């Protein structure tokens, strides 16, 4: 492979990885926007999404086949089911904590994360579950560069979901309310906006996006397990902060940047796969030192 081929191949790798990061980072950032909560359980919501997708696929695969049709059906069902799970988590665990110290809510989120992780661990005995999707190996060869159809479908689906989200946030009542709440929740309440409902919708959408990513990851990488949400949760959090937490375009940008940093970091001599995470975190710290609100974040006065 020539240097140029390697560059393009890592670019493709980074885009695919970045799409997953971006989908999960969106949930982080949306939830942060409306309730100012770092939802550490979000990676585990992604994991549960993968498992729901796995269960649905095992039911629908005999009917529609284990290809992309089956995965698409599983993904939609997982998005709806996990969307409701997100709302339930918000109601049960976060709603009662609205007036508690912020660090307490953070620990509550960590507790929710542990409950989801260990719940699935107990149910599956820590075993990997092969997803059973059969997506084929086809793709396009451009010289030595290879882009599989699966990668195209993944990135395309992620882009479509993000465009749909952007339209929802900018064009609908709920979307406008969401943005308004992220600026001043109390004022919104005074103006008659149903803040509780908007928060519920936000958790639903954020969780559904994570579930979409979880199901696609299960199908694409071939298996699901109880700990699959841990690392991506941290990475998505990093991505959301690089982009500017609270900013929806920021989460997309942050996800792609982090995906690309990791791919190219692996290839750069002197960094390599050994040091790539150190490289990513160093870039994160550098970004925050130079621009303390992240790339697309707005500066705001902090209120404790």
């Amino acid at each position, binding site marked *: 492979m020539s240097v140029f081929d390697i560059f393009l191949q890592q670019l493709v790798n980074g885009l695919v990885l970045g799409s997953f990061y971006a989908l999960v980072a969106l949930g982080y950032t949306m939830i*942060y926007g409306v309730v*100012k909560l*770092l939802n550490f359980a979000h990676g585990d919501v992604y994991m549960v999404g993968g498992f729901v997708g796995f269960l649905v696929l095992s039911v629908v695969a005999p009917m529609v086949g284990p290809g992309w049709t089956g995965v698409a059906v599983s993904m939609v069902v997982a998005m709806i089911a996990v969307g409701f799970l997100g709302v339930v988590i918000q109601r049960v*665990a976060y709603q*009662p*904590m609205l*007036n*508690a*110290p*912020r*660090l*307490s809510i*953070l*620990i*509550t989120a*960590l*507790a*929710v994360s*542990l*409950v989801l*992780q*260990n*719940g699935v*661990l*107990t149910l599956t*005995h*820590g075993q990997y579950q092969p997803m059973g999707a059969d997506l084929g190996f086809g793709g396009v060869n451009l010289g030595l560069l290879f882009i599989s159809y699966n990668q195209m479908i993944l990135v395309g689906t992620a882009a479509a979901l993000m465009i749909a989200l952007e339209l929802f946030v900018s064009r609908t009542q709920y979307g406008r309310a969401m943005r308004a709440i992220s600026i001043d929740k109390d004022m919104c309440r005074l103006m008659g906006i149903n803040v509780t409902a908007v928060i519920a919708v936000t958790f639903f959408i954020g969780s559904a996006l994570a579930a979409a990513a979880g199901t696609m990851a299960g199908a694409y990488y071939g298996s699901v397990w109880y700990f699959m949400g841990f690392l991506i949760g*941290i990475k998505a*959090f*990093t991505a959301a*902060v690089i982009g500017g*937490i609270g900013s929806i375009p920021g989460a997309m940008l942050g996800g792609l940047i982090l995906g690309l940093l990791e791919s190219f970091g692996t290839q750069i001599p002197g960094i390599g796969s*050994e*040091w790539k*995470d*150190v490289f990513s*975190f*160093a870039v*994160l*710290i550098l970004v*925050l*030192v130079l621009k*303390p*609100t*992240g790339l697309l974040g707005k500066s705001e006065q*902090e209120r*404790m």
Partner: protein
Amino acid sequence: MAQPRSNAFNNIIAQFDEPWKRYAAFAVIVALLLIAPISLGPYATVILTNALLYVVLALGLNVVVGYAGLLDLGYAAFFAVGAYTVGILTHTFGLDFWLTLPFAVGAAMIAGVIIGTPTLRLRSDYLAIVTLGFGEIVRFSARNMEITGGASGISGIQQPWLFGWHINTPFEFYYVFVVLAIIAVIVSVRLQHSRLGRAWLYVRHDEDAAEAMGIDTVRVKLAAYVIGAIFGSISGAFFAVNLGAISPESFSFQQSVLILMAVILGGMGKIPGVILGAFIVVLAPELLRDLGEYRLLLFAVGLLLIMLFRPSGIWPVRGK
């Protein structure tokens, strides 16, 4: 601050607001700790040693989180700095353990300044990710470098001698950690009532007002970081000689989270609360051990319930 709901328990802990009762309780606890190994046997001694280690760690993180109000998700980094400084200097360079302690403290101070300086101007949620990032950078560096022994870490770290006494058995280490924990409690109390302690209180409640009153907020916050780092580093130093072997796995993000849990679960800023939190995070999973794979699930559910019913921690600072 949200009002804690269960009144019977609040009445019990309120008892200890009277100073003499507090000192009496402290004396009773110390006495119990001193006789515990004799009545409980070696396994319980090892577990209690571990709990005391977490007491020191949690009190150290409490300076950062509870006193100064700064969120730190990478506290295990300081724990690692102390452990590796001692591990490398004693094992690779053959220095005596006690001579390495000043180096461990120095390294922790430097690490505290390195982490603190660029980050202290950030908002608290950004601080969370940056500290997390630093924690991971330290762990990955320990894993990748040769001097730290790579992923296998350093084993065969010698147990220390103190005036001709070889601290070697689990029982001896237990008493070492009892002494460490007592020192940590005393230092925490003194800090809380010092000028610096009051400065932290102002900074925590209203940073702008503190600034207006002439407090150098960046220096005050940096002091919290550095003091917290020293607590972590000394814990790490004794952790290394106690276990005799250290590896990067002991300094993961989960470790930082566990220490943070101890601080917040018990009631951040409140010393008895933090101690209680440390005992819970160590003893609860151990007591649930016979439940096998349900153990961690029950621990997680218990944690969630505690946070829901006592949002400010089990033994919080009393609301004003």
